[in-house]
């Protein structure tokens, strides 16, 4: 299976501070991985670097997408190659409606776009379509708005940063459904038709709603362990991230 995302020896500096150190990560086509780590470990930095936010400065290493080096491309170019993100705290944009962004996505879509109105009804997005982006929305509503844009855009590679943070118990089911829809998990068991992605989570609770093929543990800007998501999550739940840092395997990195 070919790798859609391949990161080699990545070092990233933000505001003069080194955040990511010699980070390697590979995600094959059709797989959904999860990135587990405590607050401040570099999870969000990794996502923002992959999509190309300019304040996340790559000082070493390479990001390959579908075999192409994208390390120096800007955000637009990366998005147009098929990388999409759902941010944990996206900005509020006064004067710009969610529908305007969706209209742009639809107008520039390369594949047939599903019926937006039907989907908006199904995922209870309708009330936000004509509202300014993220203005006055609850945590769960922001997540739904973010995921809905990805649902319409259907990027080849999707990163979601803490998709369940601030989401109440009622809304979490909808978020889970949207995630499975985005990754085409409901439709097919054939890997090549599934979509690829990375789910960033601190608690791991969202993994109760979507299957992840592999988990990576990030501590202090370095991925030192990759393995079965449920085994890793059980360890973290039992011993905490502090124990991971003290673990023999981690110290031998």
């Amino acid at each position, binding site marked *: 299976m070919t790798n859609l995302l391949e990161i080699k020896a990545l070092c990233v500096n933000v505001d003069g501070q080194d955040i990511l150190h010699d980070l390697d990560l590979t995600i094959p086509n059709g797989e959904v991985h999860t990135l587990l780590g405590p607050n401040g470990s570099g999870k969000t930095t990794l996502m923002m670097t992959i*999509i190309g*936010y*300019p304040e996340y400065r790559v000082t070493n290493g390479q990001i390959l997408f579908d075999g192409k080096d994208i390390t120096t491309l*800007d*955000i*637009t170019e990366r*998005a*147009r190659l098929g990388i*999409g*993100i759902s*941010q944990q705290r*996206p*900005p509020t*944009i*006064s*004067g*710009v409606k969610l529908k*305007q*962004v969706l209209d*742009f*996505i639809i107008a*520039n879509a390369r594949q047939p776009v599903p019926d937006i109105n039907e989907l908006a009804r199904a995922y209870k997005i309708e009330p936000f379509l004509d509202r*300014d*982006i993220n203005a006055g929305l609850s945590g769960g509503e922001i997540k739904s708005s973010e995921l809905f*844009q990805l649902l319409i*855009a259907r990027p080849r590679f999707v990163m979601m940063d803490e998709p369940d943070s601030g989401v109440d118990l009622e809304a979490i089911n909808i978020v889970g459904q949207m995630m499975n829809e985005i990754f085409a998990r409901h439709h097919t068991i054939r890997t090549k038709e599934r979509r690829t992605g990375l789910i960033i989570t601190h608690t791991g609770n969202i993994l109760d709603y979507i299957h992840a093929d592999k988990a990576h543990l990030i501590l202090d800007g370095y991925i030192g362990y990759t393995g079965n998501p449920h085994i890793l999550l059980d360890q973290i739940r039992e011993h905490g991230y502090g124990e991971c840092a003290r673990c023999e395997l981690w110290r031998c990195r």
Partner: protein
Amino acid sequence: MENSTDLRQAADIDLNQFTTVPDTHRGVLVSPDQLEPGDAEVMAGVGVHVENEDRSGTYILQDFNPLCVPVQTKGLELLPIAVALKKYDWLRKKYCFKAVNADLDKYTLQCASAADPQGYFVHVKKGVKVPFPVQACLYIAQSGIAQTIHNIVILEEDSELQLITGCASRTGVGSAAHLGISEHFIGPKARFTNTMIHSWNPDVEVRSRSGTIVDAGGTFISNYISLRPSKSIQTNPRTWLNGEGASLKYLTIILGFGGSTIDTGGDVYLNGKNSSAELAHRAVCTGGRIYQRGLLTGNTPGCRAHIDCAGMVLDAGEDGFIEAVPGLKALHPDARMSHEASIGRIAPEQVAYLQSRGMSEREAISLLIRGFLDLDIEGLSPELDARIAEIADLAGHGEGI
């Protein structure tokens, strides 16, 4: 008439450098078909469509030559002002210089002293609702001239009119001046929507003085858009809400480029019981100096007024700025008045967010500017909507004049 906000930011114009006398050797415009294709295109850019479709009347002033397309609507009259003044004695006695003093400043004096005044006269009779907008284009096609305009608009009781005035200059025109007086008289329960769109060359200078008097229950909606500013624009429209329940909505949208000075205002006198005024200034500065002002004076019980100045500065260089000075003056204890002002820049994280959805940086900036200009403006007409899109596009692309 009360003293208006002091306008002093735009430099004094030496009027001696311009001619105000028509060149008799130039042909007189008798039909819109005679317009050069390039001129018609520029006029369309400021909302004036020479084919006269979906318009109830058309007036074009090219340099000093007026042209009126006859109107078909009963109860609507559209004439060159010089013709109207000869035709109606009452016009001079009852309306001329009743909303703008002839001796307000040297520019109004210049207009008032013109032997053959230019400009339009629009008269809507009692109860007539004009179905389509009347359009007027004040067009400068040659360098070295000063247009001296005097417009008068009268709406009788319970009438309605939309007026689109496009002011522009032919591509390549150099130094020229556009001096104007506009007087509007809005009768009881009448409704007047005045949309003015400016698009000038960089060496044209504009001094525009307007006065509007609104009777009981009358409504005045004024939209001013400056797409491509001239070297300097100085304007301070003044409105007297004299009748009970008279209302005003005033919207100014300005795009400033390097080298231009734009000084706009809006003085409103709330003299009528329960009269109301709402002023919104929006400016995008990509260079040059922009002054947003306005002084609302509340004189009566129950009057309500709000002024909102908002500016966005984009790569304006060292000399570019926006100065916002919203003013309130309450002369009655029951006057309810408020103001707000904000100036900012485009937030990089908002641009990046939209880029992450596949927009280019320019597309993202255009959409953000459009959102900024559209903010809280309800019921935009298609004409206004198109101009806002154009401003957003121009500013987003960092295009100069």
